[in-house]
């Protein structure tokens, strides 16, 4: 395998793994964020504070804890996830759920409450009203997803500990960068980082350029 095709493979794996992780985090975090953002309940500042604080989870420790869970002898060892991309996906998803929830909550809170009432009075049910609020906050949701994706794709600790940086199986951009750096392959390490950043820039710029169309499409 040539270096170029290897970089392509690693990059695609990174995108798949972290994209999947961000997707799962969105599935979990979005509803939580919407609920926390819309419901007025006692202890809401507490819940928000907890999710905010969880954003500080150090990846090395998270990787270690999950390793202990996923290890053969760990309580979740039977899942046989360790050293597979799926282990990384799970770990990264857990890592970024707090980011997803925090940004979503803040975004939803800033939507004019009348929007919810408008949807309701026009005949929407609760979930329809939530969808209407979500649609208004598409910019923030995009940011939440993008930040989650970015955090996932740029993290190292979880990928290293749960994936093991196995060539052809779990090596992704950050583990490759770390390896090349440790090996003193400075140029290659930085080159891989540039690949990562360029890919993410292209994705994010496209997303932002497409935002208007997404908005439009959501209203189809």
């Amino acid at each position, binding site marked *: 395998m040539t270096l170029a095709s290897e970089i392509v493979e690693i990059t695609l*794996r990174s995108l798949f793994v972290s994209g999947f992780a961000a997707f799962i985090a969105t599935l979990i975090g979005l509803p939580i964020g919407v609920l926390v953002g819309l419901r007025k309940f006692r202890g809401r500042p507490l819940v928000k504070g907890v999710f905010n604080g969880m954003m500080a989870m150090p990846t090395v420790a998270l990787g270690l804890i999950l*390793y202990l869970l996923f*290890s053969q002898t760990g309580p979740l060892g039977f899942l046989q996830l*360790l*050293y597979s991309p799926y282990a990384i996906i799970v770990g990264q998803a857990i890592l970024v759920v707090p980011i997803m929830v925090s940004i979503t909550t803040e975004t939803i809170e800033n939507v004019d409450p009348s929007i919810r009432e408008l949807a309701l009075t026009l005949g929407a049910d609760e979930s329809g009203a939530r969808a209407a609020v979500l649609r208004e906050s598409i910019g923030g949701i995009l940011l939440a997803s993008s930040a989650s994706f970015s955090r996932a794709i740029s993290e190292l600790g979880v990928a290293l500990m749960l994936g093991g940086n*196995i060539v052809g199986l779990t090596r992704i951009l950050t583990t490759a960068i770390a*390896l090349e750096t*440790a090996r*003193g392959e400075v140029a290659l390490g930085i080159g891989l980082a540039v690949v990562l950043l360029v890919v993410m820039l292209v994705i994010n710029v496209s997303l932002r350029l497409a935002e208007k169309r997404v908005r439009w499409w959501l209203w189809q």
Partner: protein
Amino acid sequence: YTGQTLGKSLLTVSTTTSLFDTGVLDTLKTEYEASHPDIILAFISAGTGIAITHAKNGDADLILVHSPSHEKAFMDEGFGVNRKILAYNFFTIVGPSEDPANISGVDASTALSRIYDYGQSLNSSIWVTRDDNSGTNSKEKQLWAAAGFDYETIKEADWLVSSGTGMGATLRMATELELYTLSDIGTYLKFFADGLIDLQQLVVPSESLLNVYSAIAVNASRVEGARFNLAMDFIAWLVDSSAQETIGNFGLEDYGQALFLPAVGVIESQTSNEIYGWIRSYAFFDYDGTLYECPPPWREGDYGLYQS
């Protein structure tokens, strides 16, 4: 790229970062997979401590490490069997080319003594230690002890910096801050050749600087799910002369110096070669008063690995 193993068997090898980072394992992997198309070799690299934890937890089938004390404990607890010494090389003490402590050409113990003296006379740092319980760090502790110092005591000294990080980063720090440090030869040569560091090898290789790499198969009867047969097959392959040759040639071209020296031949020949003696006294384990590469109780099955 989602990493399907496609019906191939996965052999997981837990190893230490400094060994993995040299790249020799990637070369071995390529060769081994070429001759064993149904196997995927997966190297998991981590600090020595975690690497051994992996094996204990059943997350590895084999360990490749260079820390005899750790290895002994691992086997003592029954986790590992069939230890095989594969290669050796020498640690080196490196430092700024100005060599303020004047250790050039002396042996390790003398060098450390001079560094100690120089350090004590100085208020600024002179030595950087990794202090991460890695194989290199274990060796450093032995060296200080051999020179007559207690590592835990001198660690508190002002002239000693504790980097708590990998070999590459520690070498960089030594360059930046003009410090001496102990390094494995592989990382040093690589970084030096790439111009990333500006440190000189100052001491002569000697017994005390010996670094021995061994493979240990995970004991399947102790650790559930360990692929013992695959592991033994790989160990047998490593012991084989072609693999030994690969190890011996690694880095020659790039650095003009071999990073690893094959050990299997040395041990087999049992020559009165002084190297054999060094390995024996440094990396063999005592059992009933005799030194064994792998004491008999910790052998499992007959793979023709040992002569005694």
